[in-house]
């Protein structure tokens, strides 16, 4: 094991917080780093492809990612991911408010040196 690049695997919620919004059949999920030094690894690991894979059961038509480095944040926009949205879906949560927590449970790898910056107990 190479101690210089020791990595720990943690759920995303230890490195970032998120909020979901919806418009029609489209969901946006912000990902905001808890600390600026955690932002680069989020950019590296949470790509449109990795997020599309996480949401594969919702079969998104497209996943876009917008970077906001001054906020240490990213904004994901997932099209056609709400089964039609608030007027058409059969889901109790037709807005997809809970989807932020599906994303927050994504495993990510963090160098041990940055582990003290992670949130939570």
């Amino acid at each position, binding site marked *: 094991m190479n101690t210089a690049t020791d990595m720990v695997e943690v759920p995303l919620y230890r490195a970032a917080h998120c*909020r979901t919004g919806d418009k029609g059949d489209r969901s946006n999920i912000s990902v905001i780093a808890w600390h600026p030094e955690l932002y680069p690894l989020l950019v590296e690991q949470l790509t449109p492809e990795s997020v599309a894979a996480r949401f594969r059961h919702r079969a998104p038509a497209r996943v876009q990612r917008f970077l906001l480095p001054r906020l240490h944040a990213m904004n994901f926009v997932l099209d056609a991911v709400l089964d039609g949205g608030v007027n058409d879906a059969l889901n109790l949560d037709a807005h997809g408010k809970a989807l932020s927590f599906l994303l927050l449970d994504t495993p990510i790898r963090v160098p041990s040196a940055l582990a003290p910056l992670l949130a939570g107990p």
Partner: protein
Amino acid sequence: MTVRLKSAPMNAIAPPPLLIGCAAGFSGDRTDAAGPVVDTLIARLAGGPAQQRAFLIFETLAERTLALAQLRRRDNPEAGYEPLLDAMLRPVLARCLAHGIRIVSNFGAANPRAAARHIARMARELGAAAPRIAVVEGDDLSGPEHRALLRETLGAQMEGLRIVSANAYIGAEPIAAALDAGAQIVVCGRVADPSLTVGPAMSHFGWRADDWHRLGRATMAGHLLECGAQVCGGYFADPGYKDVPGLEAVGFPIAEIDADGNCTIGKADATGGLVSEATVKEQLLYEVHDPSAYLTPDVVADIAEAEVKREQCAADRVALSGVRGHLRPSHYKVNVCHEGGWLAEGEISYAGPRAEARARLAAEVLRKRLDGLALRVDLIGALSILGDDAGRMLADTPDAGLRDVRLRVAATHAERGQAERLAREVMALYTCGPAGGGGVRTALTPRLNTLSCLLPREAVRVRFELLGKEALA
């Protein structure tokens, strides 16, 4: 409508910031939130410079709220505005009027004039001086006189639709004009939510309608305010990770907007909640897609380079900077609500050993009995709201032996009779289904679907009217 020829001159001494408090973020929000906001505005005005001004906004329209309001108005010409108007406004109306706090809201919904009459009556009952009330109109394109225009725009999409409502998202200009004309209360139907803030800022600071950067900044101030507590501790708490003090008494937000449109967000004094860089960042990005192009009827706002910074010496105050604005869109977005068949839902609970297996068996029984209906199946407690309608995620989720599971099935159908079959089949599970099934509930709801389209600005006649005594009687 006043035509603004030039922006007001900048004073050598900067004018005090405009205070805008939000008392409601949607129809269904707490009705006791306004009081502490108004108390705080009154205290700030009393302790501030003579020329400082304050506004109170209420945002109470979601997509379907307006369609439901239209349906109520069809049955009763005096209905169609926010049903909770009285509960929201009565606790604070007299104090707002007494302290010069002006009110701007979309609680007019499908009947701004009736809402205005209700407010005038409320003021009389409270013994307050009759307020000057304006209505903003032009957003409502539901009537037969607009049908040809909608048909031209929607084309084949309109075939066979039973339209309930059609409303354009109009902007801040008529609100600003109404305030310039002396309105103390401005009652709107559908306007873009941030416009409830931009209108007061435009009027107060004398901004032109093409002052893009200022309008962009005020738009984002409005975006932070428009969801009520969402920027100051609401839709945020997550125990152990995002702790929010006093969530049961979460305060609602107050923005201070300067002459350039930059804002600092705070909240009502002596309330729960918190305003932090984290809460503000979450609300800033809420319902945003491309951050460099947040479209509203007033401007295209650009937060790609925005920054958020907490004030060092005061709690619960965060400043937003770095926002820009660009040329506004040439078209208004229009939401058309139409009848969309029936939604049927049924639920039944199982508990104890093999509860999940029994719930899954009941789901199988229903699928076979209801072939012809595209069923959504939820196993509440095992997998529900994260799952997709078609059941792909559920198919990937094996029985985990859970001991308290509520089965929910849902389907839509154009015909009420077909939708009702679902409710009857769930009910019959009492005697025909697996052991121990209890707590059946069923629901049948008419659906409203929405379509969006764009109309050129020139096609929509946006206007305001200050209502006279007769109109308010």
